[in-house]
C-alpha cells in the first residue's frame, strides 16, 4: 500500500524502521497492514508528522502500536520532533493490506 510523503527519500528511510513495528494481535507490520497513510517532513522546523490509522477505533492495542511508530521514526530521525496524526477518516479497510501482507495472512 502506497504511503504518501513530501520527501520520498526520507520516507523510505522511515518505512525501513516501520516494517519492524507490528500489530501484536495480527503479527503483521504496520506498513504492510496499511496503517500508515502519509509521512510529512518539515526541514525548516525539523518536524515529522506521521498520519496513520488503526484497524479499529479504540483498538486495545492502539497505544502500543502508535508508541512503536513514534519510537521507530524518532530512532531513524534523531534530530527531528516526531508527532502522530491519528485519523479514522478514511477508516482502515482490509483493502489497504499490501500484497506481501495478504501473503502473510494466507499462510
Amino acid at each position, binding site marked *: 500500500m502506497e504511503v504518501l510523503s513530501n520527501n520520498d527519500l526520507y520516507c523510505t528511510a522511515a518505512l525501513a524502521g516501520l516494517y519492524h513495528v507490528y500489530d501484536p494481535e495480527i503479527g503483521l507490520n504496520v506498513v504492510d497492514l496499511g496503517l500508515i497513510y502519509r509521512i510529512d517532513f518539515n526541514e525548516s522546523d525539523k518536524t515529522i508528522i506521521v498520519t496513520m490509522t488503526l484497524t479499529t477505533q*479504540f483498538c486495545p492495542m492502539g497505544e*502500543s502500536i502508535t508508541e512503536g511508530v513514534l519510537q521507530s521514526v524518532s530512532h531513524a530521525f534523531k534530530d527531528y520532533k516526531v508527532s502522530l496524526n491519528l485519523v479514522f477518516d478514511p477508516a482502515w479497510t482490509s483493502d489497504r493490506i499490501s500484497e506481501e501482507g495478504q501473503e502473510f495472512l494466507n499462510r
Partner: protein
Amino acid sequence: MLLSGTDSELQQTTSYKAVLPFYIFAAFSFLISCILLLLNTGIIQEHYFHPKTLAITHLMALGWGTMIILGASHQLLPVLIEGKLDSYPLAILSFIFAATGIPLLVISFYLFNTGLLMQAGAILINASVICFFLNVIASIEGSKKYNVHALFMAAASLWLFITTFFGLMLVFNFSRSWLPQNSIEYLSLHAHIGLAGWFLLMVLGVSTRLIPMFLISKYSNPGILWWIFGLVNTGLLSFIVLKTLQTSEEYYYGPFLLILAALLLFAGYCYQAYKERIRKHVDEQMKISLLSVGMLFLPLISLLIVIVFITEKSGSNIVLLYGFSIFFGWITAIILGMTFKTLPFIIWNKKYRTNADIKTPAPKDLFSEKLFNIMAILYLTGFFIFIAGITSLNDILLKSGAVSLLMSAIVYVWNVIKVVLHKTGK
C-alpha cells in the same frame, strides 16, 4: 527525542484493574462449579428446583458467565461503541458488589437459607448490576455513537438488571410471599429473561463485532444485525407476555421460532465472516469460539423437547439437559476460547504497551497453547460424557463427565494464572 502527539487523540483503553479481578473471580467460580457438580451428580435425578442445582446454576450464571462478561465488557465496550468507558470507579464498585454478593447468594442457595444471607447477596448483586448498567449507558451517551452493537450492549445490560431485580423479588418472596404465586412458578421467566435478554443478546452483539475483527473479515451486514436484535427481543417479550397470561404450552413455539430465526441469522453471519476472512489461519481459541456457535443449537433442541415434555408434565432431566447445555456448553465454550483471545492482550498491554521491541513476546505467547489444547479436549470430552449421563441417568457417566470437566477447569485456571503472573524478561 520522543514527542507523543497522540495523547489527545488516541483515547486510552480501559485499565487492566477494571478487568482482571472479574477474570480471576470467574476462573475460580468455574473451578468451584465443577467441584460442586462432581460432588452432586445425584441432582440430575431430582427436580430442577433443588438447592444444589440452584447453587451451581447461579454460580455458573453469575460467578462464571456474568463476571467474565462484565470484565470483558469493560475492555471491549470502547471497541463496540467507539468511545471510552465512562467510569473506572463504577467498574470497580461493580466488581466489589458482585464479588461479595455472588458467594452469599450461592452459599445461601446451597444451604437453602432463604433469609438474610440470601437477601443480602441478592441486594449486592443488584447494586453491582446497577453500577454496570449506568456505566454502559453513560459510556454510550458519551460516545454519541448509537450503532447496532451499542444497542445490543445497552439492551443486554437492561435485561440483566431486569433479571437480577426479578431475582431479588423472588428471594424476598421466599420469606414474605408477597407475589401472587410461589417463587418456583416464576423460575422459568427469571431464567429466560437472563438467558435470552442478557447472555444471548450480549454474546450476539459482541461476537458479531469480534469474530469478523479477529478473522480480519471483509464481511459486514448491519441490516442482519438489526434483524437479529429485533427477533431476540420480540421473542423474549412475547415469551414474557405468554408466561404472564399463563397461556397453554403450544403458544411457546412462537417465541421459540423467533429465537431460532435469530440464531440461524447469527450462524449465517458468522459463516459469511469466516468465508470472507483474509486471515486464513484460524487459531484454536477462535475454533472453540466458533464451535460455541454450533453448540447454541443443542440447548434449542433440548428446549424443544422441554416444551413437549412440559405438556406431558415429565422429563425433569431434559430440563436439566437444557440448562447444562447452556451453562456448561454454549457459555463455557465461548468463554474458554475468548479468555485467551482477550486476557493475554490485557496483560500484554499492561507489561509492554510502551516498551515493546523486537524481543517482546507476542500476546499469544503469554499462555500455553499446549495447556489450552489439553483443556479443550478435556472440556469437550467431559461435556459430551455428562450429556450422555443426563440422557441415560447413568451416574458413572455423570461422574466421569464431571471429573473431565473439573480437570479442564483446573487446566484453565492454571493457564489463566500463567498469563496473569507473566513476568517481563527485561
